[in-house]
């Protein structure tokens, strides 16, 4: 993917973030906050899981262009995934950001982040929503097992 395409994807997702809402959604959503120590990115991620399938994801909050775009793209890609695939997707995306081996199936627009590892502290911006959804999935699985 060339730099102009990446820039277009990220700008579009920053300007019109998918499923960004002003207020906490009603329904069976599990919420997790995610923030970065080094700046003031601060978002709440809401996930609706039914029968091990991610039915919906929304988010609220304030974050930089990279965090916002990353959240928007994550939501588009992860709605409809089962939890097993979702966990693999999160690990793969995180590996890509931290320059480790990864499988790029289902990444689509998320490939715009394939060189974010070169941008120092923007790695924490790109992974901001993933830390939240990972925790939600873990908590969901733990609660189910209990």
């Amino acid at each position: 993917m060339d730099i102009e395409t990446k820039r277009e994807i990220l700008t579009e997702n920053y300007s019109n973030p998918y499923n960004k809402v002003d207020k906490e959604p009603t329904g069976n959503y599990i919420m997790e906050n995610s923030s970065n120590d080094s700046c003031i990115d601060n978002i709440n991620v809401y996930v609706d899981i039914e029968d091990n399938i991610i039915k919906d994801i929304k988010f609220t909050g304030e974050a930089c262009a990279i965090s916002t775009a990353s959240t928007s793209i994550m939501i588009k890609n992860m709605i409809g995934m089962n939890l097993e695939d979702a966990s693999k997707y999160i690990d793969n995306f995180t590996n890509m950001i931290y320059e480790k081996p990864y499988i790029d199936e289902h990444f689509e627009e998320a490939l715009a982040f394939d060189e974010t590892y070169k941008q120092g502290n923007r790695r924490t911006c790109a992974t901001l929503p993933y830390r939240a959804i990972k925790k939600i999935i873990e908590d969901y699985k733990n609660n189910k097992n209990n």
Partner: protein
Amino acid sequence: MNRSDFSLLVNNKDIIYFDNGATTLKPKCVIDSIDDYYNNYSVNVHRGEYDLSFKADEIYNEARENVAKFINAKSNEIIFTSGTTDSINFVVDGFMKSYLHEGDEVLITYAEHASNVLPWFNLVNDIHIKVSYIPLDSNYHVTLDNVKKSITKNTKVISLAGITNVIGDVRPIKEICILAHKNNILVLEDGAQSVPHMKCDVKDSDVDFLCFSGHKMCGPTGIGVLYIKESLEDKLKPVRLGGGMNESFDSPSDICLKDAPIRYEAGTPNIAGIIGLNSAVKYLSSIGMDKIHEHECMLKTHLVKRLKEYKYIKLLNNINDSGIVSFNIDNIFSQDVGYYLNKYHICVRTGNHCAKILKYETNVTQTVRVSLYFYNTIEEIDKLCDLLSDYDKIRKEMII
């Protein structure tokens, strides 16, 4: 001014450093003095009869004298700490915790740094004092009139930054002290942003406590100062006990401490830090604090004038006599502006700058902050402003 004294600037011609409110660069003389200590006499102070220890003692004592002279204090009024945060916490834990009682009131403002908020919040929780806020005027400045109106019969302490770290306003500390002392109120100045940038004279201002950090005034990290007025020293309890600060001890009922300020500096002090701070105050004095302040104000005036040329730039603080300028660019997150400028090797701070309750006055949660020092230049400011002159370029390049 004096750019050749800073190796970082000499060796990195493309770097423009505008984050002096966070920490300043270190001149060669400071680094050399620390290097000299570690290479040539890295022994403890107050410990031995040997020549090397005597040399360390001499410089250690000289540092206290020079720091005292720098703010026109007596050397026994200078306590070395790890920084402003440590100094304020020391005052709150070692003095205020027993001085204040339930219902007593401490006045601060919403513009204070976390270091001058959280220690007081702790006292609210621990001993049920009250923290109240002096309202700021339309420029987010503290006025004497607002201080006057905020004082109640319960007010015991006013704790304010000399210069705030986001708004950059210079507070009328001397006038506040006159008013406070008439009402038996103590005044603490958080000097983190004031002492490094303008002449501070504790005798003239009559402030009761002054807290500041070495690393924001060309000194090393990990060293700071608590100035406490001599007449109040009896009421300050040591918050750390151990070696160096005791005269003798035998049992819990038989402990004899040394005189101030040594009684407040338990354990091996940060000798290298103190030596570095000594060099820093000598260095700043050799330039002249008035000259430094004047240069920063000249730069700041130019910066504000240039930023005002662009209607999409919203300045938070047009009017102040310091080198701190905070602003936002329409519809761009401050961190993205910081990222964009970093591409051109310009270092600015973005975010809330630890002033997390300032939003209650400004309705702004984050800004881009340019904080200047004497080694900054008009050319650097022009380069910054040229980069900010093209809105579309910022929007394009802030992403990737």
